[in-house]
């Protein structure tokens, strides 16, 4: 057998069954009744999207004159992977014990972190994974850290309440977990917290961090946060960032 065929990284395209076949699976709903005309409409639409050989592999009547489709199509475009630059924060993350030592040596007091899912958001999986004692995937949460007082306010916390709490307990950092949904309603809620903290004169006194499956440092910048942690982040990543910032900003 020949060696496995290598992809040309200057011209990558989707992989389906064989390299460079360009196969893409997509799904959508059309506001038309289920039937042959609906399938034809779906195929024409996928063709207009620029895909070759569009095919309906599954369709379902959703009732009320709507039809759901799963489609295949061949992508004809390529991307030069070797020329991609994504701005990232490069930081050496400390382990839990190292963070604890760092606090003891460099900050010499307990630090306070308040966290919550704010606004209408009730998806606490993320904030719980970072804050709770038992943590996630073998990584203990902030509650377990010596030298960190972690206060998890739970879900659907109004921005006013998290700010009031942060003032009450003299928080060093606020951690907001938010699922940014397709309709982007949560974006306005994230920016409102920033604006309220500015109004209260707190923004430069508290480290403000957001986290969630669609968040990253680049979006955090746009939203007005100091950092944004996405999928694959653990408590020690957040803790490293917070303790470094406390020292860097002289908040000791």
């Amino acid at each position: 057998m020949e060696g496995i065929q290598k992809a040309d990284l200057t011209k990558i395209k989707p992989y389906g069954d064989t390299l460079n076949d360009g196969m893409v699976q997509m799904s959508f709903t059309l506001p038309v009744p289920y039937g042959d005309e609906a399938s034809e409409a779906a195929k024409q639409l996928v063709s207009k999207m620029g895909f070759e050989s569009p095919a309906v592999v599954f369709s379902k009547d959703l009732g009320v004159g709507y039809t759901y489709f799963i489609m295949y199509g061949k992508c004809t475009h390529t991307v030069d992977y070797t020329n991609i630059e994504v701005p990232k924060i490069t930081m050496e993350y400390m382990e839990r014990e190292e963070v604890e030592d760092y606090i003891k040596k460099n900050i010499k007091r307990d630090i306070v972190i308040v966290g919550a899912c704010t606004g209408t958001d009730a998806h606490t999986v993320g904030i719980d994974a970072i804050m709770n004692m038992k943590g996630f995937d073998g990584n203990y949460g902030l509650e377990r850290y010596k030298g960190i007082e972690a206060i998890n306010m739970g879900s659907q916390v109004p921005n006013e309440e998290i700010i009031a709490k942060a003032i009450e307990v003299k928080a060093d950092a606020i951690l907001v977990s938010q699922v940014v949904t397709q309709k982007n309603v949560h974006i306005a809620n994230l920016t409102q917290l920033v604006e309220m903290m500015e109004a209260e004169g707190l923004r430069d006194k508290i480290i403000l961090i957001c986290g969630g499956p669609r968040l990253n440092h680049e979006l955090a910048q746009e939203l007005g946060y100091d950092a944004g942690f996405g999928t694959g982040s653990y408590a020690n990543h957040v803790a490293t960032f917070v303790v470094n910032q406390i020292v860097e900003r002289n908040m000791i």
Partner: protein
Amino acid sequence: MRLIETIKQNNYETVSIIGLAKNAGKTVTLNYLIEEAINLNIKTGITSTGRDGENTDLVTKIQKPAILVTEGMYVATAKKTLMLSTAKAEILETTGISTAMGEVIIIRVRQKGNIQIAGPVTAKDMKYVAERLKHYGAEVVFIDGAIDRKAVSSPAITDACVIATGAVLSRDMKKVLEKTAHAVECCSLTGTDEHVKNIVRKVNKTCIISEEGKAVVPDIKTSITGGKKISEMIDEKTTHVFIKGAVTSALLKELWENKYLRGIKLIIEDGTKIFTDINMWNEMRKKGLKVEAMNTINVLAVTLNPISPEGYFFDSEVLKENMKKVLPRIKIVDVVSGGDED
């Protein structure tokens, strides 16, 4: 008079561009102002509280306008964004201000090209950076806002602001008009009397002012949760109540329960501190709520983007005419299709 001429004539040195939503046309407005300044040979400095000049929107993934800078312009941006820019620049200063995108540096453009910008996210750092841009030679500094963040338009940070609004706010044009009018109303609140300002400046905390000019400070950590305590201290002798910081719906509701509130004046720092529900605000204003500000925000113009990336648009003439009706005293500019003709 053209927008840039108004800026020069009033000696505004820092101008913020704030949007009422994402994709309301902030960057188009910024580009428009840059171009106008270049035509008049005005040296500009630019920065952003968010991200600017990136190819695609971070949230909606739609195409975004590029920012073209020319030789001699000054820019404050995070180091890493320079690598993503085609403009060539000389680094004048590293500010030590850290952002999620890296440290903010100040540059002078040496060779024209497109640039990506990510400036300081906090209003305090922004004030410092604007000062530095002026120090190096920028006659006017433009600060582009991000999403719907408006804190940089506070008179504590910038001299004047341009408000970008558009179809993206709502499919219903009435709502677009209503939200825009509210934003302009908050900015343009009447300034309070000088003698009251003096009392407030001395106390510099949330306080209740009586007819003899005495100010009493309630025992609260923040006005956000202090509504009830403040309300209890308002009596028939009260003439003014000053709220430091954020004015929320809950706070306003608690104050409103005090029957004396209708006769007195509520004083806030400036329009960026208002976080109340629009309907509630409008109803209370109709019933006699009087609000004044320590600092009024100079709104130079409202710019319109009649197109929403969600796939609908308004007739730009109709939108402009209606906007003129609700905001008769404000300059309205359609930066997408028209520009500023007079």
